[in-house]
């Protein structure tokens, strides 16, 4: 049974995020507790037992301070509290809660350090613990990096256990019995002779009691909710059109806005002429906002229509003006002065290549990609009575507060961020652009709530994109597998671009350039992985699975080339060279469920790929058919290891979704630049997977890993290489550039 050390009244809020002294930096500040953000808003008869739990006369609310973008986080995180509190999910309501530093996410930063996610050595663990300090100092309430479950796993269970503990104590006082004689079930404390006191009855007195200094969490064997598939709490509303997304926010006397910003990203607006827009039906006001112009109207469509009549004189972009020039910059960056990292350098690669009879080599390319969640960027802001309220789908509500302070000069206490459901994100809603714009428009309309909605065209052409990138490899292969690999990867720094926009310094190498390339658990005697940084100002960002989204394709296409160069079975070669047991097991599992090695119908073929990302080993097999020279994806199989699956059916959904997201981009995802502007403006040009293209998918979830992991992203990286490898198996054509449809037709 898991025992937590000394827990004080103030610090139990944060679970066992305790550090064993000795760290100088920020230690004092770190030791200061962060105020429970729920206390400031409480009515007299309410009790905020922890920042994750609110009990009042209307019932029990669990606060899940992570963004629901479709990954089921609201259900899974609520289940962590509910399990320890001994309530059912049906008994609670779940709310996102306020933007607060109390909801900092420590796990998300773990990936930023150059220790493989499966490295359990003392140095790696020491650094991981250290991460909890800066995360709290930054107070970063962030949803991303497949980190929500890992971050919450202990602290939200501890919150539930602590609340249960004080509720039992309150009942003991009231009944005049010992706590030992009491048990809890379905939201009530029950005495040995059957007296029942509901948590609602006990909440007020419990709030004045401190929890025990030692709390025991339930062992897995006692779990009633966790580890079992739950009906997601958001699905009935999402199936009846009653779920409220950011774009659905409705306020009294609200007006509607849209905006056009310089399509040369980040460049200035020299001048504009809005005379046509001014007199159009429904138009209330035209306002210049930074490098663009917003129209405020009585209906979103009037705003769309009017904003499109504005004539602009735009400044030119600061980055290379077309795709070819961006690719050239990547090609030119494979030089020592652009070297960003070399986290892996096993054996002596130079010597091994020199002494080899035969060296195989190849070069790979991937394009820019848009996030393109189906709900376009939007936010609602309302400046009234010396306060600012903002409604937005955002992955970093605390950052939205900071931006609002900068714009309005208001104190943080007078700024309220309502985090809404998100119609997808895939990393897009880590940005602040649409929120900043909505606040600035609201400042122009004091007293009136304004909902700003982007057109799809504005959304597609003003993303922060998955970077274009390249990889080169040289390898020496024996009849058993690779003996030497020199693997070089080049791309711009996602961290520098993204953190730069958030005003957070991102010094040092960018691990995302080599993510899921340097840290793969293949045993190769001589293995060197070098990252090269491309320097330009084109805005890029995290796109579902970040660096692994392209590096999975590079690495696993390479492994396939290595296997075929010696006529090795690509599955068996991977299994044989795995040094990490859970990783080997996902490969064995996917081989089994896909029937790897068994006969297929004429014209069918399989490809396999493996990626370890965000601590999750994921192996996928794609089965295709070639029909009239075109590719049809027939079946897909995936095996993943999440350590402990909090909700198996939801893990399966995320793997399916991640896999399809990877396939869609692999087949047709392509963003191009001409004259500094994005050329793809809507879904007819930036195409995505359609129903008829989607394969049947079989998922197996394993639990051999050492700790709990998140699954929002790891399903994506193996999809592209598994498909490309299947195409090679079927046709002998090795496609080394995405999207694949540039080189072969798809049905």
């Amino acid at each position, binding site marked *: 049974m898991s025992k937590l050390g000394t827990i004080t009244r103030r610090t139990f809020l944060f679970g066992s995020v305790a550090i064993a002294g000795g760290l100088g930096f920020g230690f004092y500040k770190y030791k200061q507790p962060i105020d429970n953000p729920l206390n400031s808003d409480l009515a007299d008869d309410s009790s905020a037992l922890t920042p994750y739990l609110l009990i009042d006369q209307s019932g029990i609310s669990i606060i899940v301070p992570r963004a629901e973008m*479709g990954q089921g986080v609201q259900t899974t995180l609520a289940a962590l509290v509910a399990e320890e509190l001994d309530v059912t999910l049906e008994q609670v309501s779940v709310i996102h809660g306020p933007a607060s530093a109390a909801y900092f996410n420590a796990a998300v930063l773990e990936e930023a350090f150059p220790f493989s996610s499966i490295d359990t050595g003392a140095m790696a663990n020491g650094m991981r613990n250290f991460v909890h300090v800066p995360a709290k100092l930054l107070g970063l309430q962030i949803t991303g990096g497949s980190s929500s479950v890992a971050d919450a796993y202990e602290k939200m269970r501890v919150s539930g256990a602590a609340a249960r503990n004080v509720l039992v104590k309150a009942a003991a006082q009231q009944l005049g019995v010992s706590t030992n004689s009491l048990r809890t079930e379905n939201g009530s404390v029950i005495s040995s002779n059957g007296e029942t006191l509901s948590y609602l009855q006990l909440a007020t007195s419990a709030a004045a009691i401190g929890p025990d200094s030692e709390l025991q969490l339930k062992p897995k064997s006692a779990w009633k909710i966790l580890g079992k598939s739950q009906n997601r709490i958001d*699905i009935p509303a999402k*199936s009846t059109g009653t779920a409220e*997304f950011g774009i659905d926010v409705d306020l009294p006397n609200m007006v509607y806005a849209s905006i056009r910003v310089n399509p040369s990203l980040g460049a200035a607006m020299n001048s504009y002429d809005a005379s046509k827009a001014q007199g159009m039906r429904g138009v209330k006001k035209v306002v210049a906002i930074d490098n663009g112009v917003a129209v405020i109207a009585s209906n979103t469509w009037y705003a769309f229509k009017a904003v499109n009549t504005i004539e602009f004189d735009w400044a030119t972009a600061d980055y290379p003006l077309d795709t070819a020039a961006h690719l050239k910059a990547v090609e030119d960056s494979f030089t020592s002065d652009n070297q960003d990292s070399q986290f892996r350098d096993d054996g002596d690669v130079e010597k091994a290549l020199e002494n080899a009879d035969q060296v195989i080599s190849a070069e790979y390319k991937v394009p820019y990609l848009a996030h393109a969640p189906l709900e376009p960027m939007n936010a609602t802001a309302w400046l009234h009575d010396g306060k600012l309220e903002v409604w937005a789908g955002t992955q970093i509500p605390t950052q939205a507060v900071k931006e609002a302070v900068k714009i309005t000069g208001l104190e943080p206490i007078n700024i309220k961020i309502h985090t809404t459901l998100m119609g997808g994100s895939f990393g897009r809603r880590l940005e602040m652009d649409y929120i900043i714009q909505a606040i600035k428009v609201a400042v122009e309309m004091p007293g009136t709530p304004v909902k700003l909605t982007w057109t*799809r065209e504005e959304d597609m052409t003003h993303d922060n994109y998955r970077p274009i990138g390249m990889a080169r490899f040289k390898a020496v292969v024996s009849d058993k597998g690779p003996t030497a690999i020199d693997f070089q990867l080049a791309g711009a720094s996602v961290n520098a671009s993204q953190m730069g926009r958030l005003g957070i310094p991102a010094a040092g190498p960018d691990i995302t350039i080599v993510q899921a390339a340097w840290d793969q658990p293949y045993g190769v005697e001589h293995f060197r992985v070098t990252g090269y940084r491309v320097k330009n100002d084109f805005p890029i960002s995290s796109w579902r699975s970040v660096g692994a989204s392209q590096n999975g394709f590079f690495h696993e296409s390479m492994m396939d080339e290595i296997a075929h160069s010696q006529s090795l079975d690509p599955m068996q070669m991977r299994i044989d060279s795995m040094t990490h047991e859970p990783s080997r097991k996902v490969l064995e599992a996917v081989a089994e469920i896909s029937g790897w090695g068994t006969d297929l119908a004429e014209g069918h073929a399989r490809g396999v790929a493996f990626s370890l990302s965000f601590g999750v080993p994921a192996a996928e097999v794609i089965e295709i058919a070639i029909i009239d020279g075109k590719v049809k994806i027939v079946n897909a199989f995936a095996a993943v290891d999440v350590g402990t699956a909090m909700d198996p059916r939801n893990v399966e*959904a995320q793997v*399916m979704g991640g896999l399809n997201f990877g396939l869609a981009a692999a087949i047709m995802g392509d963003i191009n630049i001409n004259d500094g502007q994005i050329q793809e403006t809507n879904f007819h040009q930036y195409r995505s997977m359609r*129903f008829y293209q989607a394969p049947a998918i079989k998922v197996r979830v394993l639990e051999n890993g050492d700790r709990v992991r998140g699954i929002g992203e790891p399903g994506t990286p193996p999809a592209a290489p598994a498909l490309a490898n299947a195409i090679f198996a079927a046709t002998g054509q090795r496609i080394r550039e995405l999207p694949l449809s540039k080189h072969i037709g798809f049905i």
Partner: protein
Amino acid sequence: MKINVNGQSHEVDVAPEMPLLWVLRDELNIKGPKFGCGIAQCRACTVHLNGQPIPSCSLPVSAVGDGKITTIEGLGSPDAMSVVQAAWVEHQVAQCGYCQPGQIMTATALLSSNSNPSDDEIDTAMSANLCRCGTYPRIRAAIKTAASNIREIELSPTGATTASEGEST
């Protein structure tokens, strides 16, 4: 002008070329139909016009005339779901959920005319609707469950209820 939505008549005063979607969303506060692309490429805005699925983002409100509009709100509610909506919940289809009103409207129209669609027929009917979360496998499963439940209802002695339950006529 007057439009009929979910069995109710509404007077609206808007530009005649305003797409139906924006009349529903911003004038009538009917938020089930979603804005995704504005050019009938994603079909998150799908509603029924006289029982047929149409992209409301691309239909001028003046073209609706006396036609009967049904939105996702007209199919059922969380407490009283239609057969198709219930199948969506049973299969836990939604992830972000933004496209699902459109998916459900398209599937409902399909099942209203064909309660035993083949895989190919499902492919053809559903391929105009985009889902960026990749929920397609579960959408297919939910359509099959809904179809089977509809056939059962059709065969039952009282057999009046169909997939288009709640649709105004």
